[in-house]
C-alpha cells in the first residue's frame, strides 16, 4: 500500500509541475477582447436555484459544516429539518428521514458526487467507512422528497447529495490535527494544484476515537454491573480528484478513494474479554475503495453529454465466536462450555455503474435532460445470503424544466427502471413553481418513487453453520427470506413557499407534505423468533425471521427553514419540523388483522417520527479572525424500530470557537496562515439517550489545529 501511495503522489505531482503560471506584465491588446474560451458553464453545469427545484431542498454549505463543529459527516444532517441522526455506537451513525428509523434507513438515496453509496446487501449507508474526509465536502444538497426522476432508484423519501471540492478546490497544502476527549485523534493532509489542463487535489487522513468511551451498558453476564461500550474505531483514507481538460470541450473528472476501517464490536464485561474466545468482543475490518470517471463533452453552448462510470468495492471481515450453546436441540449441538461456534460475518460487495446523460437547452426557456444507465451489484456474503447474487438494473430517465411564462416554471420528468428481480416500474414527477415576485415563490408537486427490495430482504439467509450430527448439517438461522417481494411505492404531494426576505439574502422555506408509502417491507418478528442478536445462540432456531410486505404508511407534516443574515458577519439558521405518521396493514394482506407482529410493526411505524424537532445554528465572525458557532438540536420522543423503549426527548448544545492567524485572519483560507478551533459537543452535558439506549450523551471536547501553506 505504501508503495502505491508513493506512486500515486509522484504521478500527481509530476502532473502539477508545469502548472505554474507565467506572471509577465504587458499592456492590454485587442486579444483580451477577442480571445475565445471553451464553454465553462455548460448546460449540465448550471444548477436550478432553490426557488425553481421540483422538490424542497436543503443546502448545507461548507461554512455551516464548519460552524456546526461536525466531525462526522452524519452530524451535518442534523441541520436538515425532520432528519434523524443517531448513533448505534460510536462508529455507527444512523441518518434517516421521515421516520421508519432502524439500523439501516433504507428509504433514502445517498450520493457522493453522483456515486450511490447506498449499498445493496443490507440496503444501508456505512457512513463511518466512506473514503472521504469531512473537510473535503464543499456542500451537501438534501432533496426532501421522492426524486427518482433526477436521482435514480431508491430516492423514495429523500436524496442526500454530497458534493466534494472540485479538483481545483484545494490549490494549497493544508495540514490539520485534532485531539480531544474519548481518544479523538485525527490527522489530515491535503495538497492540490490548479493548472492549464490539469487540476488535482489529494487528501490523506486518519480518524480515530474510543467511541462513546464513558458509556455503560447493563451487564447480562453477572459480576461487573456496568461496562464500557466496546466501540473504538480507526480509519485511514486516501482520496484524490483529478480534472483533465485535453481540449476546450472535453473535461475528465477522475476520482479515486481508499479507506481502511477498524471497528470494535461486542459488549461483554471485562471479566470475559478474551478476544475471539467465547466472547463476542471483536474487530470488524472494512476495506473500501472506489474509482469514478466522468467525461463531460460539450457539443455546443446549449448542449452537453456526460458519460460516467464508477466502481465501489467493499470488503468486510468480522470473525468471532457465538456464545456457547447449552440448550440446543438436538443436544449433540451443545458445545463445550467456554467455546462457541465460529461466526464468519464476511461480505464482499462490488458495484459497477455506467450512465450516459445528455443535457440540452431546447430554447432559452426549456432545458431537457435525458439519459440511461445500467448497474451491476454483486455480493458474496455466505453468512447472510442464500447464494452470491449478481443483480443488474437498467434505467432510462428524462426531465424537462420548462419556463412556461415569466413567472411560472414546470418541472416534469420520469424514470423507468427494470430492477434485478425483473420488475419494471415508472416513477413520474411533476411540479409547478410560481414566482409571485422575484422574491416569493410557491411550489406544488407530486411524485412517485419506488424502492427495490435489497438482497437481504429477497435472499436473506442470515446465520451460521453448526456441526454435523449424523448426516445432517445443522445451521443456525436468524433470518430466512421467503422472497417474492416487490418494490415499495411512495406517492408524495407537497406545497411549498420559498421567499427571500431582504437584500442581505435571508430566506424562508416552508413546506407541507403528505406521503403515502405502500407495500412497506419489514422484518416480520415471528412469534417464536429465536434471538435478536445472531451472536448469541440461546435457543434452537426453528422459526427464523422473514421479510414481508404487507402494510402501508402515510407521513404528513410541516417543515420550515429560516436562514437569517445579520449583516456580513452573522448568520442564523433555524429549522423546525412537525411530523405525523400513520400505518396500517394493507388490504392485500388477509391475515393482517391476526398477525400480532404485523400489528406491532405498524404500530411502531407511527411512532418513528418525532412530533416536533428542530435545530438552530448561529455563526458569527468577530473582527480579528475569531469565529463562533453555536448549534442547538432538539428532537421529540421517537421510536427506533428495533428498540424496546422509545428514545426520549433529545436536546443538546454544541459550541465551536476558532481563532485564525496569519493570512487566514482576513478569511483568506487559500493563503498562508492557520486556525485553532475548540469544539465542545453537548456543552451543557445533557444526559440524553441516543439511538441505542446504552448510549448516554455526555460532554465531549476536541481541539483542531490547521495550518495552510
Amino acid at each position, binding site marked *: 500500500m505504501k508503495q502505491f501511495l508513493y506512486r500515486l503522489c509522484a504521478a500527481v505531482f509530476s502532473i502539477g509541475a508545469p502548472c505554474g503560471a507565467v506572471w509577465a506584465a504587458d*499592456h*492590454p491588446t485587442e486579444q483580451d*477582447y477577442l480571445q475565445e474560451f471553451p464553454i*465553462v458553464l455548460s448546460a449540465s*453545469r448550471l444548477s436550478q436555484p432553490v426557488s425553481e427545484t421540483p422538490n424542497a431542498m436543503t443546502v448545507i454549505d461548507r461554512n455551516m459544516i464548519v460552524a456546526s463543529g461536525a466531525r462526522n459527516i452524519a452530524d451535518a444532517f442534523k441541520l436538515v429539518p425532520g432528519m434523524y441522526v443517531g448513533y448505534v455506537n460510536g462508529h455507527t451513525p444512523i441518518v434517516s428521514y421521515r421516520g421508519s428509523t432502524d439500523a439501516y434507513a433504507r428509504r433514502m438515496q445517498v450520493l457522493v458526487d453522483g456515486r450511490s453509496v447506498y449499498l445493496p446487501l443490507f440496503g444501508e449507508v456505512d457512513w463511518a467507512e466512506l473514503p472521504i474526509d469531512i473537510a473535503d465536502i464543499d456542500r451537501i444538497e438534501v432533496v426532501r422528497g421522492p426524486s427518482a426522476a433526477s436521482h435514480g432508484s431508491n430516492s423514495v423519501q429523500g436524496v442526500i447529495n454530497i458534493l466534494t471540492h472540485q479538483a481545483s478546490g484545494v*490549490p494549497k497544502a493544508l495540514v490539520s490535527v485534532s485531539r480531544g476527549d474519548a481518544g479523538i485523534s485525527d490527522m489530515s493532509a491535503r495538497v492540490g494544484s490548479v493548472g492549464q489542463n490539469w487540476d488535482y487535489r489529494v487528501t490523506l487522513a486518519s480518524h480515530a476515537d474510543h467511541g462513546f468511551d464513558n458509556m455503560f451498558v447493563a451487564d447480562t453476564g453477572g459480576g461487573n454491573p456496568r461496562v464500557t461500550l466496546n466501540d473504538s474505531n480507526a480509519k485511514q483514507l486516501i482520496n484524490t480528484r483529478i480534472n483533465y481538460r485535453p481540449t476546450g470541450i472535453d473535461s475528465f473528472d477522475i476520482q479515486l478513494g481508499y479507506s481502511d476501517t477498524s471497528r470494535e464490536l461486542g459488549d461483554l464485561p471485562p471479566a470475559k474479554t478474551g478476544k475471539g474466545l467465547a466472547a463476542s468482543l471483536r474487530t470488524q475490518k472494512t476495506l473500501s475503495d472506489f474509482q469514478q470517471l466522468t467525461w463531460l463533452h460539450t457539443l455546443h453552448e446549449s448542449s452537453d453529454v456526460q458519460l460516467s462510470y464508477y466502481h465501489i468495492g467493499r470488503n468486510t471481515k468480522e470473525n468471532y465466536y457465538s456464545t456457547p450453546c447449552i440448550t440446543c436441540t438436538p443436544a449433540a449441538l451443545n458445545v463445550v462450555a467456554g467455546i462457541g461456534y465460529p461466526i464468519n460475518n464476511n461480505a464482499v460487495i462490488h458495484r459497477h455503474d455506467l450512465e450516459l446523460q445528455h443535457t440540452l437547452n431546447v430554447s432559452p426557456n426549456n*432545458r431537457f435532460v435525458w439519459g440511461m444507465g445500467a448497474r451491476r451489484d454483486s455480493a458474496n456474503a455466505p453468512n447472510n445470503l442464500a447464494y452470491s447474487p449478481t443483480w443488474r438494473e437498467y434505467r432510462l430517465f428524462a426531465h424537462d424544466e420548462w419556463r412556461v411564462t415569466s413567472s411560472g416554471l414546470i418541472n416534469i420528468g420520469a424514470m423507468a427502471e427494470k430492477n434485478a428481480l425483473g420488475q419494471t416500474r415508472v416513477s413520474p414527477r411533476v411540479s409547478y413553481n410560481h414566482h409571485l415576485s422575484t422574491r416569493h415563490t410557491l411550489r406544488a408537486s407530486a411524485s412517485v418513487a419506488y424502492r427495490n427490495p435489497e438482497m437481504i430482504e429477497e435472499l436473506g439467509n442470515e446465520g451460521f453453520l453448526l456441526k454435523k450430527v449424523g448426516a445432517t448439517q445443522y445451521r443456525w438461522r436468524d433470518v430466512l427470506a421467503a422472497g417474492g417481494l416487490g418494490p415499495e411505492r411512495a406517492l408524495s404531494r407537497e406545497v411549498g413557499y420559498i421567499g427571500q426576505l431582504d*437584500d442581505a439574502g435571508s430566506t424562508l422555506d416552508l413546506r407541507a407534505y403528505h406521503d403515502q408509502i405502500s407495500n412497506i417491507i419489514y422484518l416480520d418478528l415471528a412469534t417464536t423468533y429465536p434471538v435478536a442478536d445472531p451472536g448469541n445462540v440461546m435457543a434452537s432456531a426453528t422459526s427464523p425471521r422473514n421479510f414481508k410486505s404487507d402494510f402501508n404508511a402515510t407521513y404528513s407534516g410541516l417543515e420550515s427553514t429560516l436562514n437569517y443574515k445579520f449583516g456580513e458577519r452573522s448568520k442564523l439558521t433555524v429549522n423546525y419540523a412537525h411530523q405525523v405518521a400513520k400505518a396500517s396493514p394493507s388490504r392485500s394482506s388477509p391475515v393482517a388483522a391476526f398477525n400480532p407482529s404485523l400489528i406491532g410493526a405498524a404500530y411502531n411505524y407511527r411512532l418513528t417520527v418525532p412530533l416536533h424537532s428542530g435545530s438552530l445554528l448561529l455563526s458569527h465572525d468577530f473582527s480579528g479572525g475569531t469565529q463562533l458557532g453555536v448549534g442547538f438540536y432538539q428532537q421529540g420522543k421517537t421510536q427506533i424500530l428495533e428498540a424496546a423503549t422509545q428514545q426520549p426527548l433529545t436536546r443538546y448544545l454544541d459550541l465551536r470557537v476558532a481563532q485564525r492567524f496569519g493570512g487566514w485572519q482576513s478569511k483568506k483560507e487559500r493563503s498562508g496562515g492557520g486556525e485553532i478551533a475548540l469544539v465542545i459537543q453537548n456543552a451543557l452535558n445533557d444526559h440524553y439517550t441516543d439511538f441505542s439506549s446504552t448510549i448516554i450523551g455526555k460532554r465531549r471536547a476536541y481541539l483542531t489545529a490547521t495550518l495552510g501553506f
Partner: protein
Amino acid sequence: MLRQLTMMLLTGAIALLATLAQAETLHVSLVLSDSTPPYQQFSIALNKALASSNANVTVTESSEGRGAKADLVIAVGMKATEIATANFKAPVLSVMVPKAGYEALLGRRSPQKPPNAISAIYLDQPWSRQLNFIKAALPKHSIVGLLYSPNASIVLPRLPPGMSLNAKSVRSAETLFATLEHILESSDVLLVVPDNEIYSSSNVRNILLTSYRQKVPLIGISQAYVNAGALCAIFSTPEQLAWQVAAEIASFARSGRLSEPQYPASFSIGINQQVANSLGVELAPPEVIRQRMDREGEMEQ
C-alpha cells in the same frame, strides 16, 4: 435614444461621403493585425459601409504597407498600429485597440521617425457606459468587484450614486484565487477588465467556476465571455466599429484631419439567460436594458 442618435450621425456622415464622390479619390490603406475572423469581419464590413455610401475611396489591404501610397491608414489592432506608424507617413487611424494599449504604444514610438498624425477608435467601452450598463441590467447589484494585476494601468472611475467599487490588486499568480474568493465574498458582481495576467484563457475557466459557485455573476467584455458562462457583457463588434471608421473616413476626407481618439459609438449587449436563471437573477431583455441606459445617459447630460 443614444443609439438612434449615433446611427443618425453615422448615416449622415456616410451620406457626406457620397457628396465627396465627385472630389478627388481618397486612398485608404487598410492594415490588419492578422487574417483571423474578427479582422476579416472588420474588413468586409468596412468595404460594405463605404460601398453603400458610393464614396470615392479606394481601400487597399496591406500587410506590410511599405512604400504603399496612401492618404490615410486604417490600422486594425495593436500589431497593425505598430506597423502602420513605423512604415507609413500618412495619418493613422488605429481601431480595435484598447485605450490603455494604444496610449502605451504612443509612448513607445520610435524617435527616429517623425510621428504620424494619429488617432484611434477604441475597442473598450468607457467606464461610464460600463457602470451605467451594470446599473441598468442589475439594479440591485451595487458592489462591483474588480481584480487587476499590479502592472495594469487602470484609472478607477468616478462612480454613479448608489454604486461602490471593490477593487483588489492580485500580487502574484499564486494569490489569484485567494484574492478572487476574498473579493467574491464582498461583491455583488465581478467585472472583467482587459488584463491578460488575470483573465488568461486558462484562468477564465476557474474564475467562472469559482464565481458561479459563490453565486456572484461575472460581467464579461465580449460575447465569448457570455458564451463561456458570464452573465452578460457589453462590447462593440468589428462591424459596429467598421461603420464608425467609415464615418471617420468621411470626416477625414472633408477636413483632412482626424478627430480626437474616441470610444465606440455603438455597442451590443450580450446576456446568458441560462446563467441568469440558474443564479436566480432577473435580467431584462437587452432592448429594455438599452432603454434604461439611454434614460440614465440623458439624465446625466
